[in-house]
């Protein structure tokens, strides 16, 4: 299954799986997911902790290979660690981490930090390198004097701008943004989000925006997908996703968000109460992973995992309630 058919896909993920072996047992972080991101699109991947959303991002940037499935980038299979990827591929896919403080080496100046990708990916040296570094800080809107500073000497938002600059320096076509604003204050988060939008538009980039913040996704991305216990539950164009959420988990999430005005309250499905805890990905529930918390749980949900189905153009749901009308008549479990 793929999303919008008219555009060319820059990234296609199918049946992607990733397992980790822990002392407590096998942890299934990603349990077979499919999605595709179009050229020039901002794609939002939403989930709570333990949903496996960051693992998906890590596999795309090549932190490790998957345990099955496929990642196609511009039609070419890239499912392997970065060390085994071509130089051009490494240049094209960049990433920005959650914690700007931890992703900048405290022993290097901003100039040194920004020089690394330019040297590695664009083979720049000497004055060409210097010029490119200066262009980069300029692009993200930081003053040139910052080049000689150490990361500790600048603010959190500014650090994240440096990280964004570092990701942009090699002229990538695709950026994985893993919670890029979560560690920042709201007022600074807005500034960074804005900058990201502006750069995406100017440079024609595609983003995979990974976050737990639904409100941010609502205002930033074109398509939204929701993940829970390593699986995708619902994906739709953002407007559709928020105005017509179908999966009970989506509804529960939306209903849980504390909002600032009555106008926003209207977007919250009121009938779904938040109950229970997220199960451990080591001890996954059988059938649909959400059945332990689902208010509409059927007997079938406990035994059989639902499959993604397209309910309206571009809107996919993985839920028995929306898969088969016959099942709806079946008895509800207590």
């Amino acid at each position, binding site marked *: 299954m793929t999303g919008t058919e008219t555009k060319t896909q820059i990234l296609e993920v199918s049946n992607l799986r990733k397992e980790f072996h822990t002392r407590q047992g096998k942890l299934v972080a990603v349990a077979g997911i499919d999605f595709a991101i179009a050229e020039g699109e901002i794609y939002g991947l939403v989930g709570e902790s333990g949903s496996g959303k960051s693992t998906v991002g890590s596999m795309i940037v090549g932190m490790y290979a998957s345990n099955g499935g496929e990642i196609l980038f511009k039609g070419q299979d890239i499912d392997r660690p970065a060390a085994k990827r071509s130089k051009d591929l490494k240049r094209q896919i960049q990433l920005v981490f959650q914690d700007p403080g931890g*992703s900048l080496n405290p022993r290097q100046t901003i100039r040194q930090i920004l020089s690394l990708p330019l040297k590695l990916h664009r083979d720049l040296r000497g004055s060409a390198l210097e010029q490119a570094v200066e262009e980069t800080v300029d692009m993200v809107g930081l*003053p040139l004097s910052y080049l000689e500073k150490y990361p500790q000497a600048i603010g959190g938002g500014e650090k994240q701008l440096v990280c964004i600059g570092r990701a942009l320096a090699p002229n990538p076509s695709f950026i994985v943004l893993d919670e890029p604003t979560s560690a920042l204050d709201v007022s600074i988060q807005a500034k960074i989000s804005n900058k990201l939008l502006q750069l995406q538009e100017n440079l024609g980039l595609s983003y995979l925006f990974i976050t737990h913040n639904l409100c941010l996704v609502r205002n930033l991305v074109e398509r939204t997908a929701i993940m829970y216990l390593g699986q995708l539950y619902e994906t739709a164009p953002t407007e559709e996703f928020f105005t017509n959420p179908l999966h009970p988990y989506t509804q529960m999430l939306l209903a849980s968000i504390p909002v600032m005005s009555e106008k926003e309250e209207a977007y919250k499905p009121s009938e779904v109460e938040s109950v229970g805890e997220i199960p451990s990905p080591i001890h996954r529930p059988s059938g649909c992973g959400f059945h332990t918390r689902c208010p509409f749980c059927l007997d079938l949900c406990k035994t059989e995992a639902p499959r993604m189905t397209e309910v309206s153009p571009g809107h996919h749901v993985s839920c028995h309630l929306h898969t088969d009308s016959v099942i709806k008549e079946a008895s509800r479990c207590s």
Partner: protein
Amino acid sequence: MPDNQNKTVRPRWDKFKRQWHKFSSNRLSLLGLIVVITLIVLAVFAGKIAPYPEHAGLYLDFQSANQAPSLRHIAGTDEYGRDIFSRMLFGLRVSLEIGLLVLAIGVPIGVFLGLVAGYMRNTWVDTSIMRFTDLFMAVPPLVLALVVVAMASPGFFFAAIGIAIAWWPWYTRLTYSLVTSLSNEMYVKYAELSGAKPRHIILKEILPNAVSPIFTKMSLDMGMIIIIASSMSFVGLGVQPPAPSLGSMVSNGIKFLPEFWWIPVFPALFVVLIVLGFNLVGDGLRDVFAIEEL
């Protein structure tokens, strides 16, 4: 936030100035530094400063043996009539040399193995290096050092080798744990993902962040090594007579207690002073770097 548009910013120098300010704002650290510098000067120029430089070696003058401290001999004289203060200065030189030699042998080996094992985590290289390290940590360090020295031959050089053999594993352990935790830092991950060479990652991304703890440990260890080296001289496995060493001066002097107490007491106090100096500096460094890591 007003921007500092000054074009001639020198970040490294600024950082050093900031760290120096923190270090020197602690009076004890400063005192330690003064002690250490004074000791180094005394050791380097022992030949010029010592009132009786010829007393450092074999020298007999039984007429002036066992003299109490006086203006002529500020720390008294020993059983052969040698000026204890002069011998202490030469003993100091030996102590510092041995400390430096141990660190010069032990730290590069230890840090190198720690870096390699830490960077190649969970491979056979890591396992074999760390198992090899365990081998040298299976007995208390002083025991190992004594065995090594006794088997080779007692003296300055083998004392240093013996202590270094017992010492390097601690640097491997420290570096290993630093590298393991630093490897999880996002900036290291970024460099790896960008295809930076292992050399760059180890030398530019990891090592600079591991330097301060290693350096601090070296300063603290200097004192400890001097104690151990003097202990080895004390049991007769260190520097051999007639060359002066603080440890053997103490151990030879014990039999003159309590009448000629100055023979062992001044060298012993001198060891305390040397170790105190290095420890104060080490603690000062630790404070400065701990703050810097915040």
